[in-house]
């Protein structure tokens, strides 16, 4: 009896042991289920180095969108799974971007990547994602080639760089007709970097096709000490339109020198970059009045939810959004929509869902009325607006003037350039 008792106890102990193990497993299974309720994504941004402020605003825009999506109940098709973003720092350096992409995919096991501000970082880091077959949502970089390499897992929300040059050409043609000012010749002034050269290649494709003759092609070294020689040359050749690609220091210098030398073409048109920089006006002063610039979003653009979102962002972080922040913000909503339809975090299903995107409602409206990707993963309807520096109530502002539908209500285009008062 004693013996049997002992055996019973042994059995009991064994049973308890086994049961606890099973329970432990059950518990483990429970946490697994918890984890599935959180969708982990990775973002590569320049969070240190000279481009750090640009990375920071991109991070803030993403955080705000994710907060909103999670507060609204997360991804409903996946039991209200919450979005979680892991940020990693590229330092704006392509090589670091590659290591970070690798790390996010293999160690953090993110389901998709977003980023990454610079085209230079996007080019190699998207290659990593393609190799691992993890979707990479490129929200800001605009280098044409990013979606022209036949990659399957890359989707881009931003416009291609060359589309801006195309839009500028269309704008010139349209204005020329509308205001009955014949435009024949164009002068190009650009910094002699990959960016400037790229713009010229695109201009050389689109401008002559629209019947415009390029009479001046003037590259200059970035951060010049004096741009008067270039301006005097433009004065002599006297093209109908002057188009520029510059960072902020040279943009301001050019603008001021044009004013000094009283150069008056029919229009000055900038290509974002320095002309869109908030310090540009402070540097150039009134000399920038009636200059045109191109962008994809402006605070005054006439699109649904645009004002409210910008206002909320201002309250939260103390400054306004910019076009890049809007792309980062809207990108999160495009991703949420994709996850909703995929109802899965499997890369292949995600990829299919991205490709089938056709988003026509919600906060993404502040960027584009319809978000859709072509077979290369390029957003088809990336919007482009043209704004003009105008004095509103005595204060210089960027006023969105084109296209008509998205222009600031009540705004007027000043065409041709009237010269400085």
């Amino acid at each position, binding site marked *: 009896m004693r013996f049997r008792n002992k055996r019973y106890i042994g059995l009991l102990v064994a049973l308890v042991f086994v049961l606890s193990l099973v329970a432990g497993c059950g518990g483990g299974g429970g946490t697994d289920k918890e984890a599935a309720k959180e969708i982990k994504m990775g973002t590569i941004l320049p969070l240190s180095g000279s481009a750090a402020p640009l990375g920071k605003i991109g991070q803030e825009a993403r955080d705000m969108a994710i907060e909103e999506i999670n507060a609204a109940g997360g991804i409903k098709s996946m039991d209200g799974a919450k979005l979680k973003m892991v940020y990693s720092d590229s330092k704006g350096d392509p090589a670091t971007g590659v290591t970070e992409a690798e790390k996010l995919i293999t160690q953090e096991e993110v389901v998709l990547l977003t980023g990454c501000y610079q085209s230079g970082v996007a080019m190699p880091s998207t290659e990593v994602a393609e190799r691992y077959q993890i979707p990479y949502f490129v929200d800001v970089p605009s280098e044409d080639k990013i979606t022209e390499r036949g990659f399957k897992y890359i989707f881009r929300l931003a416009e291609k760089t060359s589309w801006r040059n195309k839009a500028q050409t269309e704008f010139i043609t349209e204005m020329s007709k509308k205001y009955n000012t014949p435009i024949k010749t164009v002068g190009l002034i650009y910094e002699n970097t990959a960016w400037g050269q790229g713009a010229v290649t695109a201009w050389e494709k689109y401008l002559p096709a629209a019947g415009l003759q390029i009479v001046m092609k003037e*590259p*200059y*070294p970035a951060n010049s000490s*004096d741009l008067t*020689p270039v301006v*005097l040359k433009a*004065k002599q050749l006297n093209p109908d339109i002057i188009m520029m690609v510059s960072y902020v220091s040279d943009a301001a210098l050019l603008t*001021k020198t044009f004013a000094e030398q009283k150069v008056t073409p029919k229009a000055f048109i900038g290509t974002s970059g320095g002309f869109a920089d908030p310090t540009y006006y*402070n*540097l150039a002063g009134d000399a920038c009045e009636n200059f045109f610039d191109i962008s994809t979003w402006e605070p005054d653009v006439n699109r649904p939810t645009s004002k409210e979102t910008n206002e909320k962002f201002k309250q939260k972080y103390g400054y306004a959004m910019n076009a890049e922040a809007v792309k980062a913000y809207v990108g999160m909503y495009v991703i949420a929509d994709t996850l909703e339809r995929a109802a899965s975090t499997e890369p292949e299903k995600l990829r299919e869902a991205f490709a089938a995107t056709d988003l026509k409602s919600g906060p993404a409206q502040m960027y584009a009325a319809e978000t859709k990707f072509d077979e290369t993963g390029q957003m088809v309807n990336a919007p482009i607006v043209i704004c003009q520096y105008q004095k509103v109530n005595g204060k210089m502002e960027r006023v969105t003037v084109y296209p008509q539908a998205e222009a600031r209500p009540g705004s007027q285009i000043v065409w041709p350039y009237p010269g400085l008062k």
Partner: protein
Amino acid sequence: MGFLSVVANGLSMGAIYGLIALGLTLIFGIMKIINFAQGALLMVSMMISYWLWVATGLSPYILVLIVAPLMFLMGYFSERFLIKPVIDAQKDVREPVSVLLLTAAFAIVLENLCLMLFGADYVMAQTSFSSQTLALGSVTVSAARFYGLIIALVVAFLFYMFLQYSQTGRNLRATGQDRNAAALMGIDVTKTYAIAFGIGTALLAVAAVALIPFYYVHPSVGAVFMTKAFIVVVLGGLGSVPGAILGGIIIGLIESVAAQYMTATLTAMLVYLVFLVVLFIKPTGIFGSPYEW
């Protein structure tokens, strides 16, 4: 007529390059030190001028009365407490490169300090005459640049007279020619060095007030003018005052005139080409002579 505007612009920019190079050539001529901090010190002068202009609203040209003495003191004391100890430590070394490295390090410290204090934003003084132009007949010149030309020429002339005829000027030149002999003649070489560095820095303050009405200020703005200042100094002859101004004007004219016939990128190359040719023909520079001082 367009051509005359081009020449006028080249002259005025060139004179300002020359003004920036004056300090460099002085410090080299007397101390035999290549001052890599010249660009950074120009930037500091521009920063101080700009913020004083914001605070007082006075014309930048009047502010030179505050900025120049301030920069003189800064130059004087950085020589005393930074450069002199290194010179003394390397007294017996044949090729004292430590001072050169020290000035380069000093530049990096100054640039990052300004980056911390003032941030990376570009600023520009929008004075009443910033966007004005002067029309002399058919020639149009930016007012700010034209004033810059006059300031550069006047200051260079005064500086030259000062070197030639004042006692301090004679001390400076004597020290530059042979510091041991000068010391034996009773010149306080240590003090003369500090004064040379101080004056070299104060000259940058003059260049700074001439620049800020039409050029932006930024912690890295020194680099824009630094390379040019070196070319100007070597072209004109290291240690020569007229050489610095003439060298500056040559560079300014090449940049301005040549840009009418080729792209600005090629012009930048042409500057270096002319520089190389001059060095081949006359390695000491146009006005260069070991006995200049």
